[in-house]
């Protein structure tokens, strides 16, 4: 478990005593804070900017979209980079496949093989995709293309319709694959100072690999692969 340097406190732990002493303890009823700067945020303003979606579905809007509708959205707005089947064009990310590859030498982390929550897919597509026109899709289009990407990964059936009730219920294959607590430090090196090892073997060298762009002169666009 991660250990914090200071115990959490609601009042600024680093605030100087003088100010702390003069800060009145505010109850929930207070209309403004101690400094009173800025404007109160209205419900309308909050609703327009608050776009995050949680695994329990909090934040998902009204609307819906089917796998079929999603296929059309995907072909128009996504396939040019992610490939018609989510296989990924060039260096653009793969969105499907890689099942069971996480223990392999070259794991393929995709929505199907790696992502723990379906809500994240809705949230991310909605906030950041398509790459060159973020936040340009309607909520229905996002539901539809989310359904389609899930279907590409065999996570939902072809008749699946995504909405704020169905999406949080989708179980992702790798849902249990994560440990949400930092186990580190996991390596305990010793501070040995003398005769720390018998022999030293160089096993790898970057010499002659020709992967390093130049570090002098103008930017080096030469080495592309």
């Amino acid at each position, binding site marked *: 478990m991660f250990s914090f340097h200071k115990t959490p406190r609601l009042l600024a732990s680093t605030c100087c005593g003088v100010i702390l002493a003069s800060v009145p303890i505010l109850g929930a009823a207070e209309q403004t804070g101690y400094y009173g700067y800025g404007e109160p945020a209205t419900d309308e303003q909050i609703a327009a900017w608050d776009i995050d979606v949680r695994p329990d579905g909090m934040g998902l809007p009204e609307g819906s979209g089917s796998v079929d509708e999603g296929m059309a959205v995907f072909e128009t707005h996504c396939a040019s980079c992610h490939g018609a089947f989510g296989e990924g064009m060039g260096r653009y990310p793969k969105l499907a496949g890689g099942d069971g590859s996480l223990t392999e030498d070259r794991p393929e982390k995709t929505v199907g093989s790696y992502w723990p929550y379906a809500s994240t897919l809705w949230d991310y597509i909605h906030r950041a995709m398509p790459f060159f026109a973020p936040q340009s899709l309607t909520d229905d289009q996002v539901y539809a293309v989310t359904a389609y990407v899930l279907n590409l990964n065999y996570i939902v059936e072809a008749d699946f319709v995504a909405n704020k009730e169905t999406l949080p219920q989708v179980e992702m294959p790798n849902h249990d694959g994560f440990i949400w607590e930092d186990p580190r430090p996991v390596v305990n090196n010793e501070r040995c100072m003398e005769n720390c090892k018998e022999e*030293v073997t160089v096993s790898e060298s970057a010499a002659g690999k020709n992967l390093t762009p130049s570090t002098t002169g103008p930017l080096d666009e030469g080495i592309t692969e």
Partner: protein
Amino acid sequence: MLGKLRRLNQDASKIALEESERLPSEERRRFLRSGLFTAGGAMVGGALAGIAPKALASTQFPPEIPPWTRTLGPGVVTDPYGVPSPFEKDVIRRNVPWLTADKVSSISFTPLQHLKGIITPNGLFFERHHAGRPEIDPQQHRLMIHGLVDRPIILSMEDLQRFPSVSQINFIECPANGGMEWRGAQLNSLQFLHGMVSCAEWTGVRLSTLLQEVGIKPEGKWLLAEGADGAAMTRSIPLEKALDDVIVAYAQNGEALRREQGYPIRLVVPGWEGNTHVKWLRRLEVGDKPWMQREETSKYTDLMPDGTAHGFTWVMEAKSVITSPCPEMPLKSKGVCQIEGLAWSGRGKVKAVDVSVDGGQNWQQAQLREPVMSKSLTRFSLEWKWDGNPALLQSRVIDETGYVQPTLAQLKQARGTNSIYHKNAIQTWKVNGDGSVVNVQLS
């Protein structure tokens, strides 16, 4: 009168031409451009083409009196915002074109090999963008704080600067720094291997001040930070950390944040992975659970050999690297040299750094240079007499928690080769007999 003036000008041009022969090409152009010799400018420019090689070979050392001693330079505000000398043109951020699909979601690396002390100049701070660098008008930018709070507010950038401010020196490191090297040595460069760490003095408002202002409801346990860029980058941060030492920063090394660093405001989350330091910050939401965003599930989670992944691995563990010599800065000659490097820890202060010249068989404690600050870069040095034989140079940091920087073999043993992030292993530089330096790995 006029004739005399012209003659003078022509004489001046002749001197200019002579002197310029002794200057490297860049300075020569600047010298000729300086405006003193405009009359003969065209002629001089034409005559220069053929003499470049000779110009490069000459010096201005004693007993020569250099031309800059015998002329006047450009006046004040020639550069109203100062820029580095043209002789420093190699000292720039650089990228690895084959690493990413597009420059708008990519990385550039700080030229650590050229930097002195611990502060990264603002123009050289490494960049990591997910949707390019937005151009934000601070007058039009707002920070909204809402969620499980008593008084949701919207702050202008002017409002923000009215709160009490703090300044603190902190490094920021991308957890993918060095991530290309898990499977073997690929890149032969300090800049590309370790340049995703930089350090600055950040000034802004403590997040605890802002959260106190809005009043956190008792159920509030987590904070979501969101950027205003085209990726609307988000990360969940536990309130314990948010209330500890996090700041909403508007200044970097004394001036407004650079656009690449989140202008007009960014989060600084001392010691934690770079991705949590959300740039172009537009929204902070208090909640009772983490949001499980793409940047904390699909990315910035560490895949282990057994197929499970570790999430919320926020802290940047202690790391160090020798910055001189390095592949870009080979040893010049046998004899006394100063080994120098940088060390840092996301858990606090650097306690000690050891240096080995024999691949980790024997170690000597290096000297730490003041100031030594928590969650900041710390510079170390050790004097070494190089006998001209090949050597294997390493540095090893110990932080104030007693954590000792691991070897790559130890780290791979524990984490396999597919975790991408958090590769804080000891770096080995091989010094060859000719003084050149190569990135190597030991088994």
